[in-house]
């Protein structure tokens, strides 16, 4: 099953001008567990989607909100010439196809 099929929210946003942060949120415990336990949810799979080193990707389960947070560095500071998404609010899309 793909992330787009089981998540309630998949969003991206700047966390300051140097980082992108992604929140995957689920409607129920089973979906959350499926995501957290999936072998697809790892830095080695996610880093190439954003062109960043594997050791710069941080994945953090946040069970109190049935959510998973992913934080990684931007390719350039927000709003520098060449940036594609100043707020970082449309960078979640490549995650939607993750097979969980």
């Amino acid at each position: 099953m793909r992330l787009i099929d089981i998540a309630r929210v998949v969003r991206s946003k700047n966390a300051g001008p140097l980082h992108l942060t992604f929140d995957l949120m689920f409607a129920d415990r089973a979906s959350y567990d499926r995501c957290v336990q999936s072998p697809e949810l790892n830095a080695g799979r996610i880093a190439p989607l954003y062109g960043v080193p594997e050791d710069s990707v941080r994945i953090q389960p946040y069970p109190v909100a049935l959510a998973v947070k992913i934080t990684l560095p931007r390719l350039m500071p927000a709003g520098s010439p060449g940036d594609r998404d100043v707020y970082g609010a449309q960078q979640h899309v490549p995650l939607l196809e993750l097979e969980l």
Partner: protein
Amino acid sequence: MSAVSRLRAHFAADPSRPLKLVGATGQLGYGIPAASLAEALRREPDMIGADMGSTDIGPTFLGNGEMATSAAQTKRDLAALLKGARSLDIPLIIGSAGSAGAGPHLDATLAMVREIAREEGLGFRLAVIRSDMPRDVVKAAVRAERVTSLGLLEDLTEEEVDGASALVGQAGTEAFVRALEQDPDVIIAGRACDTGIYACIPQLLGFPLGPVMHMAKIIECASLCCDPGGRDPILAVLDREGFVLESMNPDRRATPMSVAAHSLYEQADPNEIIEPEGRANVAGAKYEAVDERRTRVAGATWQPAAQLTVKLEGATRVGERAVLLAGSADPRFIAGARDLTEQVKGVVQGLVCAPGEEPDYSLTFRLYGLDAVYNWPEPPAAPPREIFVMAEVIADTMDRAMTVAKSTKQYLLHLGFPGRLSTSGNLAFPFTPPELAAGAAYRFSAYHVMAVDDLAPLFPVAMETIG
């Protein structure tokens, strides 16, 4: 007696009473829903706060000194809050004035506040916190290796410090508390941590800082922590152990899940809130429903920092920006768009530069429909029916940028290629001129942490009597 003195006297008489705080808006200047604000005032809060700025909007506003919001709406929002706070004689605290909180933003905000006071016949004591960083102080810190990179941007240099169009620091709760001690009715701060707006009065009154910072971090976004999230004012009722949240829009419910989830929003780590003076840990916080629309939160802890720090934000001008806006529906042009836009770069260079001369400008294409928002490694499985073509030119002067944009427009419009059917033009312009002058372009040149021994000299407080 000022609004702050009055509040301190109330708490001296009854130290166990709760404190009622209203987070009016997370981004003043886009409009505050009137019915929700009226409801917030009806609850007779002890203070009203509002945040005006962020780095979200990019480096340009910090660099050029302008507000991201319209002057008319900003003044309308300021007037609504000033009148509301003065009608109840309670403190109004506003942070990150004028979108980016540098001197020009703060001064423009203060000018509006004075104008509103004159028009509405309001009188009050105003405290002003400035956040522009003295360049010599920052350069001394650079030399002493007390400025740390947060990654991505390299170590700060003295040249970058001198070259920045604007350089501010984020004032912490400390600066707001110092302002409160001057006995104001209204505080307007330059660039500031949004938490400081809401944490300063509780800190002055001796509330434990763990729950205070947790509350401050939530209510600075107004009703965004609710289900559904929104921009209406929110009320927090704070006691010595925790706080209860309630949106001032009856359609928004603060549920344990929606409030807990808010800790994720725009934060690199949902369990920590890092401030100049320390950090709050919210990992052990408990969220309990009071009823359908209210949630009580308790359990966050506070760890004072071993070293005081200031987050620096600097913006540096990189040139003048011109943009070209066009579209295409032609399948042959769309099929070749990636190559054709690369090709036209060379054509344009030959037109606007002397032979053998390197371009003195940058020309970047974004092909919406193909790979503009995200740099997809593969073309789409099926070609899109239409694409939008945006060209961005950055050059030293606007004349030069527009020169490049105009030649780009004409030569992309008429660029020939094998199989071309539409020999009268490759592009549709939604209006003319399709080349627009977008003003100066900037980049964030500083987003670093500076270790300091004393915060107070960096964020001076000045008092002013209005009316």
